[in-house]
């Protein structure tokens, strides 16, 4: 396959970036999208140019590191697929493909396609946990949990924190990410005692990071590689509403 890539190049967070065209030849349909970029980079290095910086690690769709907007769609728009699992067989010979970083004020570009998603970590640090220390916990079977609740919690917990929801949202909102963690923990009995405090603190941190607001367009759900449901955002709103009514700070 021969392709034309239009890639965002940016030296660092301070300098402005621009789209640069790269002709690419000899791509095999069995390659993953990132392996295609590896090929491009090997060519650039051989020419003495700096390779395109992009984040990736596990390359099996679970670590959430890869973060490319491909042809205007987070992770390339294949249902339930991260960019590292996207294969070139979904493209046609002769295609022009645009590749951009996640774009959000809360995710500043560090270089080329690499962004800083520390905002997500700070949201979790604000309250995305159950406050138990190591040791002294009851027997795991002491607390029966209905399978439906446990399964639903798992649906939410499947979030890989990649940020595709933010990238896909027209408002760069992080509601799906926050909703997934709030739902996961509020669905389980272990997470009950601090559920109001948790949702309140996490939303406050989300706001402080400068994400946009949810206008219920559904783009996040469609882009999510783990197919986290929009229903969890309703659950987040519900949790927040209860916290508000109870006057939790």
């Amino acid at each position, binding site marked *: 396959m021969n392709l034309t890539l239009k890639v965002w190049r940016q030296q660092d967070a301070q300098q402005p970036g621009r789209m640069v065209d790269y002709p690419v030849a000899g791509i095999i349909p069995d390659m993953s999208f990132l392996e295609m970029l590896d090929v491009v980079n090997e060519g650039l290095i051989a020419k003495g140019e700096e390779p395109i910086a992009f984040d990736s690690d*596990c390359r099996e769709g679970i670590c959430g590191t890869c973060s490319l907007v491909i042809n205007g769609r987070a992770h390339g728009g294949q249902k339930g697929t991260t960019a590292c699992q996207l294969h070139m067989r979904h493209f046609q010979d002769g295609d022009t493909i645009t590749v951009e970083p996640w774009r959000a004020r809360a995710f500043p570009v560090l270089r080329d396609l690499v962004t800083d*998603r520390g905002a997500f970590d700070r949201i979790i640090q604000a309250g995305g946990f159950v406050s138990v220390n190591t040791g002294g916990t009851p027997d795991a079977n002491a607390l029966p949990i209905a399978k439906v609740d446990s399964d639903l919690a798992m649906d939410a917990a499947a979030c890989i924190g990649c940020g595709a929801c933010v990238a896909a949202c027209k408002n760069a909102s992080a509601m799906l990410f926050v909703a997934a963690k709030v739902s996961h923990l509020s669905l389980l009995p272990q997470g009950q005692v601090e559920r109001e405090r948790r949702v309140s603190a996490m939303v406050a941190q989300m706001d402080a990071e400068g994400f946009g607001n949810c206008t219920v367009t559904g783009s996040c759900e469609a882009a999510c590689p783990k197919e986290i449901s929009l229903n969890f955002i309703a659950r987040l709103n519900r949790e927040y509403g209860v916290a508000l009514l109870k006057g939790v700070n």
Partner: protein
Amino acid sequence: MNLDSKIPAGPLAAKWDKHKFDMKLVNPANKRKFDVIVVGSGLAGASAAATMAELGYRVKCFCFQDSPRRAHSIAAQGGINAAKSYQNDGDSVYRLFYDTIKGGDFRAREANVYRLAQVSVNIIDQCVAQGVPFAREYGGLLSNRSFGGAQVSRTFYARGQTGQQLLLGAYQALSRQIGHGAVKMFPRTEMVDVVVIDGLAKGIVARDLVTGELSTHAADAVVLATGGYGNVFFLSTNAKGCNVTATWRAYKKGAVFANPCYTQIHPTCIPVSGDHQSKLTLMSESLRNDGRVWVPKQKGDKRSSDQVPEADRDYFLERKYPSFGNLAPRDISSRAAKEVCDEGRGVGPGGLGVYLDFADAIKRLGEDTVRERYGNLFDMYEKITGENAYRAPMRIYPAVHYTMGGSWVDYNLMSSLPGMFVIGEANFSDHGANRLGASALMQGLADGYFILPYTIGNYFASTKQSKPNVNHPEFKKALESAQAMTKKLLSIQGKRTVTSFHRELGKVMWEKCGMARTAQSLQEALKRIPELREEFWQNVKVTGENNSLNQDLEAAGRVADFLEFGELLCRDALMREESCGGHFRVEHQHPDGEAKRDDDNFAFVGAWEYQGPDKTPLLNKEPLVYDEVHMSTRSYK
């Protein structure tokens, strides 16, 4: 070097409890006077950092990823073992201990493994309390499944994402401590050296991967939780960023490296599709619970799988190992697959693959049940190969997955460099020559939650401490040597890319020191690797600058270490004139092709001691003494 394992005296079952009592404690008010550096934020690192911060130590945690949540523990699919015996099927701490020792082919320390089995129980309690959504039955209690190398169901799981859920549990515990200010987190920061002052590890030099800035950090103890070295093979199931740099550079500072030749080849991975391949993807071993492994009986049978009648199929695992069948341990299953492919009976392009067939399971359980159990794995398989495994069998082939070797540590998880502790996959301690499925998560969390936080206190309380200071000349020296290495890498400006060296090294390792090793192949590798290393330092091309985000430079540093480490791995494999677990020497096998262990001469831990650049390392032996179990020939027939 005298390798003192510091195994407590007394009966096996009482060792850990007695040791916990014997260890000195640091009183709560004094804990906040101790600084601990944790390098790595996977299961072991995150759990250790969180737990030590909860205890009151001042912790700094470093990871090269952009967030601690991305460490490669996240990719573990199948589950975590624990001797809870919830299934009433005869499990016990002793049985988990025995299975692990036997699975490790009698090359692990009894005392460590017994302790691991003991604390496995607490891990599940801890994780459930954190909100890890393990699979449950309709009655609300936890569900279990069986796994390779065991005849009981003791594996806890969260769909096919157990590693992810456990890591998120540890990450959340860590995040809580970061939020409290008890842990200072350094993401996108790579450790480049350990600083040793008066024979004690007292800090590290780290590189900020965004700015390129080198910084020094002093501490009373350094904990490495930096994972395994599977990427020395280039193609492995490890994440792209996994590397040996931390433990290797510690090795050069005096932390001996044990059993590097014990590498685990996982039987159920998606076969290589071409030269472009950047990594291999594992399909959880849990698939073997319901999938049947087979190849055609006739070599060169090119019929598609549905055209091969039952009579022409060879379910070789069921045939060779009737009592364990498709659940034979990883090393055995991998080698069996290699054998049938070497006979020319492999399937798929290049003949490097065997079928993993779910037709029977779908017939027996229905497609929905199979989908519920393994749906995400089937989806993953389809994404990568474009094939639907509900219709046709999967094709699988073994790939490098886990490394049992690592920094040598004593019972307290301290390396031979005092003050430096090594936990999780980065150490060598618990899996012997082969790790059983669902035991890596168990070990990482055991070390991090329940072992290191105790033993590190004993170190603080029983060692005369001088307060470390980054102004010490040793810090300056380490900083300068790190700067010099970066400068050198950037100044070579040769013709070959870093990846091309890594790929070639990987090829040498896989072909000469992979699933089957011979003295000759190892000698060839030992000749080729130094040449390749020489060429690397003459001819590598690293683009960009030091003072910015430079992924090419990051990779170059890691590959430079792999080029040294690969040689040690082959040297260890050549030294070990026996076959055991993940180490198979073709010269040492029984007539039926089974591994032939040599307990008389090789029942020891081989720990290599650095002697200086280009000098042959020194082999130290820690004898393995088995008081409790009899060293039998491992049989899964």
